[in-house]
Structure formats: C-alpha cells, structure tokens
C-alpha cells in the first residue's frame, strides 16, 4: 500500500500524518507542492494540517492553486483516495473536491483542545473499523473550522450518509456540528480534528488509530 503526503510551505502536520500512515502499514512518500506529478501506484494522498502559504487570502486558497493540486484533482477523479486533515480539509473545499467551506470559528478564537466526536457512518474506507455511533476523543487545533454549506448541499450530505463525524458539543459553530465529510464516491474524507495526533499510546489516547487501520484493511481487501 502506498500513500503520499503533500507538503506545502507552512504545513506542520505532514510528518505526523506520515507516521500514522506508516504505523498502519503504508509506504509513504512526501511530495513537495511544486511537483506537478504524484508518484505512480498510489492508493491514497494525505493533505496535512498546518498553515499552507500562511493562510494568506483564505485558508487553503493558495495551496488549492499550487502545482501539485492538479495532480491531486486528477488522482481523485480517477477514484483515488484522499484524506485531508484540518488545513487539508480547507484545501479540499478550496479545490472543490469537497463541498462547502470552513469559516472562522463562531467564537472568533483559535481552539486547541481534545473534543469528542461521534462516528456517524461506518460506510467508508476511513471509518469501517469503528462502530457506528462510537464516541471518540480527538484533538482539534484550528481557527477556521466552522463548516458551512448551503441548504441543498447539507441535505445531500445528510441524505447520502456523507457526514463522517460530528462534534458532540459545538466548539466552532459548524452547521449541524459537522466535523468531517465524505465525497460523493466516499473516497475523499476531509475533517478538522486530527486523528493522526491521537493514534498511539504516547499521544494520550489511540482513538484516531482506527481511521488508519480502516484504510489499510479496506485497501488490502480492495
């Protein structure tokens, strides 16, 4: 199994994400934003958290126009898996690989704490190792995590079982407490919380690890 992790200027969770992929059995290659091609034979591309391009203009807006972005879109269009965390989720909405947008937190403040999420669907390669309705503790660290989409998009996300995770509380003002969503083909997941920061005992908890083992099991059996 092969994973690539994109690295933008200002990415700061790229190594954490690579470690989580490796621990789940993936060979991982780091790919610089100026590259125009992804390595061949990839199963999944990880888009990491951080502050790509200093969050200039809008979070993820410049990264979405960077050279590697075209290859990322082509990978998704071929049915490849994509996993965006935090700034990675913002980049995926800016590239339109996922619908909606992440606005500033309703409370205007940056929030860095561990929150409880509910696993809303196990019908995806990212979540099949969880039990439906499971409550998991995962850290958030963001200033723009307030998920917003128009009513039609929200109805589709709910109707098609594409809300992967919801916050138990409402830390950032996200509509419908949405923390993570899936694409129409269920192969692109974007989420604000950081499962890669809660994936081994030294992190203080391992509730995020099942996301990566879900992926490795799904891809081995694919």
């Amino acid at each position: 199994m092969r994973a690539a992790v994109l690295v933008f200027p200002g990415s700061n969770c790229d190594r954490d994400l690579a470690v989580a992929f490796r621990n789940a059995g993936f060979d991982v290659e780091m790919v610089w934003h100026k590259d125009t091609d992804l390595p061949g034979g990839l199963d999944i591309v990880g888009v990491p958290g951080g502050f790509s391009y200093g969050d200039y203009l809008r979070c993820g807006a410049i990264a979405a126009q960077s050279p590697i972005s075209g290859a990322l879109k082509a990978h998704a269009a071929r049915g490849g898996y994509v996993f965006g965390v935090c700034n990675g989720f913002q980049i995926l909405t800016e590239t339109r690989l996922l619908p909606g947008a992440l606005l500033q937190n309703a409370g205007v403040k940056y929030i860095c704490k561990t929150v409880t999420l509910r696993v809303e669907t196990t019908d995806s390669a990212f979540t099949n190792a969880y039990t439906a309705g499971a409550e998991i503790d995962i850290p958030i660290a963001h200033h723009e995590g307030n998920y917003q989409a128009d009513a039609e998009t929200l109805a589709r996300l709910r109707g098609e079982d594409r809300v992967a995770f919801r916050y138990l509380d409402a830390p950032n003002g996200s509509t419908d407490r949405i923390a993570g969503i899936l694409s129409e083909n269920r192969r692109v997941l974007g989420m604000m919380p950081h499962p890669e920061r809660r994936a081994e005992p030294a992190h203080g908890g391992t509730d995020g690890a099942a996301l990566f083992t879900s992926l490795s099991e799904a891809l081995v059996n694919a």
Partner: protein
Amino acid sequence: MRATVTVMLKQGVLDPQGEAVRRALGALGFDGVEGVRQGKLIELDLADGTTEAQVTEMCEKLLANTVIESYRVEMG
C-alpha cells in the same frame, strides 16, 4: 491601470468577526450599530488593456470563494 476588488461574505453567511466588532462598538458606547460585516479590499495594479472580464475571472478562480463570498470589481 488599477482595479479594486471588494470581497464580502454572502448575505446570510455568519460573519463572526463583524459580529465581534459590532459588540465592541456597543461596549464603547456607540449605540445604534445594528450590524457590521467585514470583508477584504484587494487593489490590483494591472497592465494597460487588462479587461474587467479578466479581473472577474481572477475573482472566480482565486480572489473570492464563491461558495461563501460575493465580490465586486471596480476598474480604474
């Protein structure tokens, strides 16, 4: 030549920063501020002959996220 692009959150999209500014104005004793919306103003220095259509394309592709933002272009 110059173009000025104003980018605002669409009506109906919550603007937490604008709301915080509104409350701060109230706390300073400025009564009657019923709403504040905060946006961005982007000035572009352009080669002569750049058309408004090209600036509009810049807005659609990068300067605004039309999922949540609206924009206005003023040329010259």
